[in-house]
């Protein structure tokens, strides 16, 4: 990160007064520059393509193309853009969907300036940001859910077949039983298991099970 380079930000919110407030606040902050604003999802995507910002800050509730779809589209663009969603308290489900779509952080709409700046600088470094002024209820929902970006990353690591086998190993099925259920040869199952363990960087089935539970690839409640 170059020292004198300002972080280029685009803000999307359907409230002009809110946008103005943001522009005022953030342009005063050192190291941050707002290069464009948008008042709905379509505009946001167009601006992102045009201005190639480092960060996008977007409200989720806007008329027209919704925030989540915009996030998804921007996540699919060539240049990497850190996306932060602005949400209200009862948006726990929506926030989760935003992460699934590619957002890296969120702040609540009544967050103050220092928090917003913190979020921008954190996500700019490629790190996940969650709001400090949020209720713990939202946090619990997100970390538990399949929307936790750390967990999503894990899920992408394994192919569907590998995930099936991980589950079955955790349920204490033998290679033979797995082979029968999946209609594979035992050799194939063992090969896949080795591949799985290599990806996990573990050396025993116990290690595999621990990894799977920790990363929510296996839900222990199913076993009880």
């Amino acid at each position, binding site marked *: 990160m170059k020292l004198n380079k300002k972080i280029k930000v685009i803000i999307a919110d*359907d*409230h*002009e*007064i*809110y*946008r*103005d*407030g*943001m522009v*005022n*606040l953030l342009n005063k902050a050192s190291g941050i520059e707002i290069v464009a604003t948008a*008042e709905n999802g379509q505009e946001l995507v167009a601006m992102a393509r045009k201005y190639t910002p480092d960060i996008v800050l977007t409200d989720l*509730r806007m*008329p027209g193309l919704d925030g989540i779809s915009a996030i998804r589209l921007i996540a699919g663009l060539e240049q990497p853009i850190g996306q932060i969603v602005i949400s209200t308290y009862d948006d726990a489900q929506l926030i989760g969907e935003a992460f699934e779509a590619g957002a890296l952080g969120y702040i609540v*709409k*009544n*967050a*103050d*300036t220092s928090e*917003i700046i913190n979020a921008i600088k954190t996500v700019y470094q490629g790190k996940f940001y969650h709001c400090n002024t949020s209720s713990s209820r939202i946090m619990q929902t997100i970390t538990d859910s399949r929307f936790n970006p750390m967990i999503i990353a894990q899920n992408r690591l394994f192919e569907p077949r590998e995930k099936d086998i991980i589950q079955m190993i955790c349920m204490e099925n033998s290679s033979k039983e797995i082979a029968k259920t999946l209609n594979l040869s035992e050799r194939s199952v063992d090969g896949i298991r080795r591949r799985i363990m290599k990806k996990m960087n573990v050396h025993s089935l116990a290690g595999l099970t621990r990894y799977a539970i920790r990363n929510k690839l296996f839900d222990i409640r199913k076993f009880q």
Partner: protein
Amino acid sequence: MQEPQKIKIVIADDHAVFRDGLRFLIQREKNMEIVGEAATGRDLLLCVEQQQPRLIITDLVMPLLSGLEAIREIVVRFPTVRIIALSSFDHEQLIIEALKMGAQGYIIKNAPKGEIIHAIRTVLQGLPYYCMSTTPDLARKISDSDFNPYKNKPGVELTEAEKRIILFLCEERKNEEIAKLIGMSIRTLERMRLQIQEKIGVRSLAGLVIFAVKQGIYRIPS
């Protein structure tokens, strides 16, 4: 030379950034000043008590006593304070509640910023203010509700021709059509339309419809 008294305004919204934008906007007006800010309904009541503003602008959804609850109390305890309600586009029902409780006007938060100043000026004149982006659906609901800012006020004198024009406008006929039906030039009609709007104190079709319904000039077809 003593400076003329600035109009004292209190704003309430739990979004700090929105308050900042609003404050910035209003402070630019030479004859207005913000004397208090609140992020909860409770703080709003305290501000009104302490500062005795002429007008408040308040969001309807806030923690610790909502804007609606605060309006209910303010109307009773401080009946001369004018109230403009703010709401997001997907909470229209709250606007109707606010009006029924005694707010004189409302703005939907994604309105362009110039509208806020216009709303303030309108409400200070004693007229109701309906946000320009009011949907026909909301206009209908307001018309159907108990909210009637025109009762207990001296009636607006309208000629028969003016009433006819209002009726046609409520029916969403175009200027050309109305001009033809009445038998006047389009220019004359346009001028009359502006005059009517000035007389009544509305700027939007929604406002016109609400006025017309409340005055019994027009009835919205079901």
